[in-house]
């Protein structure tokens, strides 16, 4: 419950109706053939931990949470004597439900996938994690208490939530988090010997006629997905990823959607391009989850006094975008910080190179 007292912001979730709708598939013709050869039995109960990891490796599963190969993650967790494995379906950003939705609509696969992962790690405790926002009254979907017998833990509090999830499980012992979608792929690797060739994305945003979650073949373009879901109007811009931290997609006709994409949003260009100056209100400092002072960081970036930035602990910024969200002057603080961090890194490398 401690999460209710954290800093951050309360966001409208905007996950409906995509979350409520049934997960659909949108696959290209190759899907059926994406199988690998293995002599291992198609039965989780008969497999040892090492064998599960080997199947994950053969299936080339990538965790959508952090882009790490699942077999590497499991291997490492096994060596570290992890005691808790958490199936991550947190989805704390508005619009995005590409982990929650598969969790709800593929309960058998995700539950069994998590048990397989646990077995590979050495039978620790298992949970699923879902984000419960302070404002998710707008969720029409009823969230169950457990999935296929696995308890769901709710991460409470304000946005951003994902970065502090580890703390919530810390009391149970060393924890590893695995994305729910990769658990589904693990299930298929074991029971079908299937190579991961798909990913789960939410297609949503003000311009999408039928927002929904899709399982799509990796490499499809945003334009394909919009054709599938229908566009109510021409999008002002297309975003790959969440509405808080995602990136603008310059070329929706050719951009390949992948495991890490998580969402494709077609948003209206409703924000009028108004120019403001920072009024010094200090709201950015009030909401920053890392308790930084983005006001000064941004100011020194604008003044190009990069030597001051270390004092304000700029490297602790997690890039959540909360400060930019709240700023009444609509300054892209988070973006400026991101660029400055890259610049600092470049300078350091240059120095080391000398």
């Amino acid at each position, binding site marked *: 419950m401690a999460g209710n007292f954290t800093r951050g*912001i309360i*966001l*409208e979730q*905007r996950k409906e109706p995509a979350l409520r709708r049934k997960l659909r598939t949108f696959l290209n013709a190759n899907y059926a053939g994406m199988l690998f050869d293995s002599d291992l039995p198609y039965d989780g109960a008969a497999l040892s931990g090492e064998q599960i990891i080997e199947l994950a490796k053969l299936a080339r599963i990538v965790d959508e949470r952090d882009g790490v190969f699942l077999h590497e993650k499991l291997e490492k967790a096994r060596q570290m*004597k992890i*005691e808790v494995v958490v199936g991550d379906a947190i989805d704390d950003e*508005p619009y995005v439900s590409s982990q929650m939705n598969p969790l709800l609509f593929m309960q058998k696969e995700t539950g069994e996938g998590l048990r397989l992962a646990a077995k590979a790690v050495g039978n620790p405790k298992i949970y699923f994690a879902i984000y419960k926002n302070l404002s998710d009254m707008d969720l029409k979907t009823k969230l169950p208490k457990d999935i296929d017998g696995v308890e769901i833990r709710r991460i409470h509090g304000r946005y951003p939530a994902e970065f502090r999830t580890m703390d919530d499980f*810390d009391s149970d*012992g*060393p924890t590893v988090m695995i994305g729910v979608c990769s658990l589904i792929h693990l299930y298929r690797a074991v029971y079908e010997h299937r190579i991961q060739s798909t990913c789960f994305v939410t297609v949503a945003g003000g311009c999408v006629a039928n927002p929904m979650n899709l399982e799509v073949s990796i490499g499809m373009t945003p334009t394909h997905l919009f054709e599938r879901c229908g566009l109510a109007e021409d999008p*002002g*811009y297309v*975003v790959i990823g969440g*509405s*808080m*931290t*995602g*990136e*603008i997609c310059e070329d929706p006709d050719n951009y390949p959607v992948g495991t890490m994409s998580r969402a494709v*949003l077609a*948003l209206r*260009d409703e*924000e009028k*391009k*108004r*120019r*403001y*100056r*920072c*009024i*010094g*209100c*200090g709201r*950015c*400092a*009030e909401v920053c989850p890392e*308790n930084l*002072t983005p*006001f*000064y960081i941004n*100011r020194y970036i604008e003044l190009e006094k990069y030597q001051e930035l270390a*004092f*304000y*602990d700029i490297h*602790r910024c997690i890039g959540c*975008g909360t400060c*930019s*969200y*709240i*700023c*009444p*002057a*609509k*300054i*892209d603080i*988070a*973006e400026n910080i991101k660029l400055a961090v890259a610049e600092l890194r470049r300078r350091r490398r240059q120095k080391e190179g000398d």
Partner: protein
Amino acid sequence: MLQNEPKAPYVRNRDSAFTVMMDVVVALLPLYFMAFYFYGLRALMLGLASVAAAVISDLACVLLEGKRPYPRDISSVVTGMILPLMMSAATPYYVVVSASVFAIVLVKHVFGGVGQSAFNPAAAGFAFAAACWPSQVFSYPAPFSSPAPFGAITEGLASGPAWSLFQGGVPTNDILDLLLGKFLGPMGLTNILVLATCLFYLLFRGAIGWQAPAAFFGIMVVAMMLFPRIPESGPMSLVYESTAGMWIFGGIFMLNEPGTLPKRSSSRIAYGALAAIFTILFQRFGRVEQTFAFALLLTNVFGFTFDRYSERLLRRLRRVYLATRTKLSEKKSAQRA
């Protein structure tokens, strides 16, 4: 910053710099209504002159600096509205206009522009006027005496309860009149009930934070109650001081001016407290009857320093916290092994 293409996050809060400042303007309107009620058209015309002077000089400065104007930046309107409220309704137009121009050109722009100015423009403008034309700024017409809307007023002016307090005497005004603002004083900030409503409106709307006003008013009230500077009981002293003085108005509208207020909560509390201490000291040892603006200008100097110290403290706490956390988890895993 010019925003050509949207950057993450793609959802944004509805509040903008315009709405935040608009809240302050809305909170100032009832004060103008009170001023109009007591002093008629002249009060409004003074306000209008001041706002016009502020806006025009702000625009001129921005253009001279070679920048594109920010059409929705109304911070100069706020400064312009605050200034005349602190003066007598009989103040000549040239005083109000010069104070306003001084505040914008010499204080706001020379010291860095919106959100960056080192000194509170409105307080500096008032201090400037009070220093140059004390007799005009501090001689008040009686409420309902309907001063002529235009031209100079020299007849029927007198000093108010703030002057008596300054002299160490007890004002002779009726208590009810004091509470309702019907006494000789600055044209817009005598009705303390309206001021309190403004404060709650701004707090409720989130236009100002609670930290600085809480520290400021807390210390002021306690000091007025415990150490009256006039031979009166504590509560009576509080009534006289809070109605006649400018610090209630200042604690709401000037102390919280975002540009000069520190950004961290802890430094805001320290800042509010320091402003209160300076106000009290100036009341005892100062040479003018209204001391808040001067005290605030002195406090402004410490705003950045407070933030710096608070950040330093925060850095240290953060490191201690992180170190203990790693130590704890190491200990735990050692226990398990």
